[in-house]
């Protein structure tokens, strides 16, 4: 279980980005973090990823304190962040260490296959479309079999079709992985949150706090046009409005 205890963060420039965040996420759970721009979502993810230190508070995974990046936690950034001087396969294998070449190859092939890009193994990143590049970065994050995968607006730069496609893809990959990893997905997109998550955490800004948590009890695969989906969308919208009212105070 991933646990955030009383997490806060104040940047050196005085911006109070997060305050008193409490969150428990079980192994295999999918949590969406939803909130307006600047409410500290990326900051929260960076703290969990170990790229920044919380102050105060602590992050623990299965009871162990996280100090800095950890092999059990993978990250998919908003941009693919592929290394342009490595082939797609080499990018996917970037984080694999201490494995025999044959074993590495097998894992990379497997990861690329899972994101449907087995045929792109030997091309340069510059030869990929934006959606393909993001899939490669998902493969890179998954190949090390992290327990927790953090995704910071992973699909926000993509068009609506590709986005929906990749959401389904991510769920597929998640369902195919054993044991299933925990996913924490930061997003601006209400539909994306409802499609993906078991639970939606809604944040409000100044400083960033948790406004509400909404459980999503819909069967997968979820029909974006279903009545229950629509109902949930309305509910989330109402809470988001609340968080905006807070901001205007």
């Amino acid at each position, binding site marked *: 279980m991933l646990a955030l205890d009383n997490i806060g963060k104040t940047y050196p420039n005085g911006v109070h980005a997060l305050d008193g965040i409490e969150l428990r996420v079980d192994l295999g759970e999918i949590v969406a973090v939803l909130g307006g721009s600047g409410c500290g979502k990326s900051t929260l993810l960076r703290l969990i990823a170990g790229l920044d230190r919380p102050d105060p508070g602590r992050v623990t995974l299965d009871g162990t304190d996280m100090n800095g990046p950890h092999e059990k936690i993978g990250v998919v950034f908003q941009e693919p962040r592929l*290394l342009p001087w490595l082939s797609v396969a080499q990018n996917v294998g970037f984080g694999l260490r201490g494995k025999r070449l044959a074993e590495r190859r097998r894992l990379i092939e497997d990861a690329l296959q899972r994101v449907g890009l087995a045929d792109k193994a030997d091309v340069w990143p510059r030869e990929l479309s934006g959606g393909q590049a993001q899939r490669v970065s998902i493969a890179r994050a998954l190949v090390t079999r992290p327990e927790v995968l953090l995704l910071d607006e992973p699909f926000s730069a993509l068009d609506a079709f590709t986005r929906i496609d990749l959401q389904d893809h991510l769920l597929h990959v998640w369902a195919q992985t054993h044991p299933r990893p925990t996913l924490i997905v930061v997003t601006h997109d209400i539909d994306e949150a409802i499609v993906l998550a078991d639970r939606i955490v809604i944040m409000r800004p100044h400083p960033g706090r948790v406004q509400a948590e909404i459980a999503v009890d819909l069967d997968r695969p979820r029909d974006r046009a279903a009545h229950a989906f629509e109902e949930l969308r309305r509910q989330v919208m109402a809470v988001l409005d609340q968080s905006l009212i807070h901001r205007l105070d």
Partner: protein
Amino acid sequence: MTDTSLAAPRTAARRFPGPGLALGLLLPLGLALIWEAAVAAGLNNGRLFPPPSVIAGTLWALWQTGALADHALATLGRVGAGFGLGVAAGTVAGALTGYSLLASRLLDPSLQALRAIPSIAWVPLFILWFGIFEASKIALIAVGVFFPVYLGLMAAIRSVDRKIVEVGRIYRLSGPEMVWRILLPAVLPAYVTSLRSGLGLGWMFVVAAEFMGASEGLGYLLVDGQQLGKPAQIVAAIIAFAILGKITDSLLAWASTPFLRWEDGFANHR
């Protein structure tokens, strides 16, 4: 199903220069022909600016006696030694100041102050320190090569994308791994460019160095040609400089291409 090779992708072979080369030769060859014809027709005696045939004759004569090769090798040796020293020092200093803020605060102000000095101004001092022979010449060339390499590498390291460095941090790369797997490849294109400008300056400074008293070298041929009133020899030496400069630069560029094929710049899309 492809066999995931973990090898670098293949890139199409480099295109042959083709029609671009012919087009580029049009102007110099045309001018040379016109000049040749003008001198042949008696429009100019060609004494101060000899026609191409005379220059070619001089080059050929110098080549046959072996003098051209001797002078060219002497110059090449100086450029090589000065370039090697300058690159080594510039790389170490640039890597230190680019990587470490402390080193940058410590070294950069002094180096920037030294850079403000026109390098030729060192000549008298170098002659006093290192004598009139090879050492002072090589030192001057090394100084010329040092600064572009230093500045280029320092700036390149500093501007490595934080986002890509974070990928390295996520995978918990150690310091040396970060340098080897992220920083080095990321700065390589800019580093190669700085090496090439360093080499260009090396060729510039070897001329100055050989002006300050040399008994051999292409620069000596220049001075000798001036003192004995032999413009064809001067132009011949200039041409030799141009050819050697171009060859060494192309070698450097060629040696670096296998490492830079991934580049996604303007040049790879023409």
